[in-house]
């Protein structure tokens, strides 16, 4: 068996004679998923420590440290949201970490009553995770100084406690999902068959689902109002209370999509086997895979031209948001039809009969 050594991301790759899906799974697991968790998990732990520190000594530098660590973890999170598999799926990891917009009334209610269940109550998905922290760190007052004063006020102790509860929950489920990935790694990479429940099919389906819903719909479509009859929803952008970072987060997410597709390792430049090389193998050429990558880079270009703050962008020039949505939709078409066709991967989890 010969495997292509594709250490560049552009064309000119050899089309290989044979293909081993297990190598894709190993590359994705060992060089993308696990390193991303290795990066993300300590960041959340640090975030929790910083919040604990802030609760002991609520100072401006401590608040800023919390905010900075929140931002860094949120960026890192963008690389994990697409892997809604195994423990993550079971625990509703991504729903608990990043359901936005945050529900202010729910959060306030939880704080006021001090009775809440972040673990098993689905209604609390929008009252925890990064969006809840977004509200608690940036949404309670207009300036950091006023936020600080808010938390220094003993009457608002319940807010501080809720902040701690949210980050504890985030760390706890992150630990669980991370540990599970380490545990199931060997089983996961050896499930290389082509069935509805095999690893590659689940990864591919999750990847497409994320691209369509997580990226196209949630980050662009819904705020731009394409699902609500031109009624824009600027409050639905990711990280609304600190929306200067909404563009950075979306670029990070698109980067994660590009890396997964091309098999690029997390935080290093090397690439390995991936959906891209599998497509090249199945089609005997690089036309389809480069067409897909072109859509990714076109989308990136359009996003780069947007305002850092998507709420502002929507208010001033929503058409440019819709342009990004449309470009991403072109990517959805290629992934859902062309890619799934040539990879012969079923789009659903149901093993229905064919004939």
């Amino acid at each position: 068996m010969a495997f292509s050594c594709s250490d560049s991301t552009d064309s000119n790759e050899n089309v290989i004679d044979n293909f081993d899906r297990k190598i894709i799974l190993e590359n994705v697991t060992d060089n993308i998923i696990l390193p991303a968790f290795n990066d993300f998990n300590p960041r959340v732990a640090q975030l929790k420590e910083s919040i604990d520190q802030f609760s002991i000594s609520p100072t401006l530098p401590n608040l800023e440290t919390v905010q900075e660590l929140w931002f860094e973890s949120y960026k890192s999170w963008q690389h994990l949201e697409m892997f809604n598999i195994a423990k993550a799926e079971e625990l509703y990891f991504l729903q608990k970490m990043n359901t936005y917009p945050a529900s202010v009334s729910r959060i306030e209610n939880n704080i006021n009553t001090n009775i809440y269940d972040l673990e098993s109550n689905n209604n609390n998905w929008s009252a925890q995770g990064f969006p809840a922290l977004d509200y608690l760190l940036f949404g309670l007052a207009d300036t950091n100084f006023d936020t600080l004063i808010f938390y220094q006020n003993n009457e608002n102790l319940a807010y501080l406690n809720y902040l701690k509860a949210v980050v504890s929950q985030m760390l706890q489920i992150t630990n669980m999902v991370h540990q599970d990935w380490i545990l199931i790694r060997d089983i996961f990479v050896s499930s290389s068959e082509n069935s509805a429940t095999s690893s590659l099919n689940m990864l591919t389906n999750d990847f497409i689902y994320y691209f369509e819903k997580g990226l196209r719909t949630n980050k662009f479509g819904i705020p731009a109002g394409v699902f609500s009859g031109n009624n824009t929803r600027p409050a639905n952008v990711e990280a609304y209370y600190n929306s200067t970072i909404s563009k950075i987060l979306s670029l990070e997410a698109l980067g994660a999509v590009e890396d997964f597709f091309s098999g690029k390792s997390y935080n290093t430049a090397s690439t390995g086997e991936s959906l891209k090389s599998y497509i090249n193998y199945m089609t005997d050429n690089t036309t389809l895979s480069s067409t897909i990558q072109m859509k990714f880079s076109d989308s990136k270009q359009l996003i780069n031209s947007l305002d850092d703050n998507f709420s502002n962008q929507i208010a001033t020039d929503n058409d440019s948001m819709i342009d990004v949505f449309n470009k991403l939709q072109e990517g959805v078409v290629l992934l859902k039809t062309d890619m799934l066709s040539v990879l012969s991967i079923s789009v659903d989890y149901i093993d229905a009969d064919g004939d």
Partner: protein
Amino acid sequence: MKDSTANYFNKHTSAAPLAVFRMFFGFLMLISIIRFWSKGWIHSLYIEPIFHFSYYGFESVKPLGLYTYALFIICAISSFFVAIGYKYRLSVLIFFLSFTYIELMDKTTYLNHYYFVSVVSFIMLFVPCNAMFSYDAISAQKSYKTVPKWTVDTLKLMLGIVYFYAGVTKINSDWLLNAMPLKLWLKSKYDLPFIGQTLMQQEWFHFFMSWGGMFYDISIPFLLLFRKTRSFAFVLVVAFHITTRILFPIGMFPYIMILSTIIFFDAKVHHKILHFTIKILEFFKMKTNNVKLSLSQVNHYKVWGTSRLIIVVFMTLQIIIPLRSLLYPGELFWNEQGYRFSWRVMLMEKKGSSIFKIVNSEADSFFYVNNDDFLTPVQQKQMSFQPDMILEYGQYLGDYFKSQGHENVAVFVESYVSLNGRLSQQFIDPSANLMELKDSFKHKFWIKPLNDEIKGF
């Protein structure tokens, strides 16, 4: 000519092949229904969806809520009665009606082999499969040794039509010259032991399977018909269907075809099967004296003349219906006009992506529909590349949003499809307001033509 026709219809043959066919068919249907139920498909395909795709003219046939389970129970019981030949005519009628009703409830699940079951059970209504070795014959103490030859031949002809058309429709440039879609499907069987990484990846093997499949389908009815080649043909049938069972998710179909083709063998083989069945019954300590006695009776079964007429008309239709696609312009695989009910099996790897845009035609405002809100993943997958389903769903959406108080509703679809490894292209005219279209048997002008030509059938 007239004499020889009359002569043919007066010929008699052993009733044993019909008895064996009936038993196998009944039990396989029973197993199929139990399997379908146990996989949870009654719920996921018929109970869970809020919208169902109808066949043209059968819009009123819908799942019955929880009573759908009762329908499957009726279907299962009747298939068991068919198997044992209990009140055969009534049982096979109930089976035909309940099974066909189930298939008509939602177009999403259309499969050629379900259609085959409906067609065969319709034929069985007019063929005395209970003449021998049935509860009916034994309890009435009147068992028939022979039946009119044409009754057995009809079932053989039906099987022949299925194979022959399945073969003829493989004569096209995608299948024969590009080994598509088998190339994609076989290559993706990477994980099969021994052959997955070797044979399945070889280009010559993809072509061998394509051409072999075509020749197999076309020739097998003839090879089964002649005594000299029959045993060889049956070995081929078993090998072919087992192969397809390993390679593709095709459920019970291979077993149905394997056991059905036994009907081509002569009476001796069928008597052996019947005697073997008696042994099985005796193993379970059942009294078989009456059964054995019934086999020695020598009555000749006469068939109601109208049955003969109905069968002649029906079989003529079976020969004509698969050819109706010739009446439509454009690329058949792309437009799918006259594609169903034609024994076109495994010819396409087709996937689509269709998103619907609800437009207020007066106010220049629009929104996209989230298909997850209305369709299950299986329905979305099937709808995305089939024009009639796109239209039906689009109109459903239009009516739904009208009922929600939206005004001046126009529905457009942004639909892209890829066919047999070609790059995707736009499928439906994006400027066609689906609310203004009507489904019919006429050519669907609102499908954008495929930018390529597939030669052949």
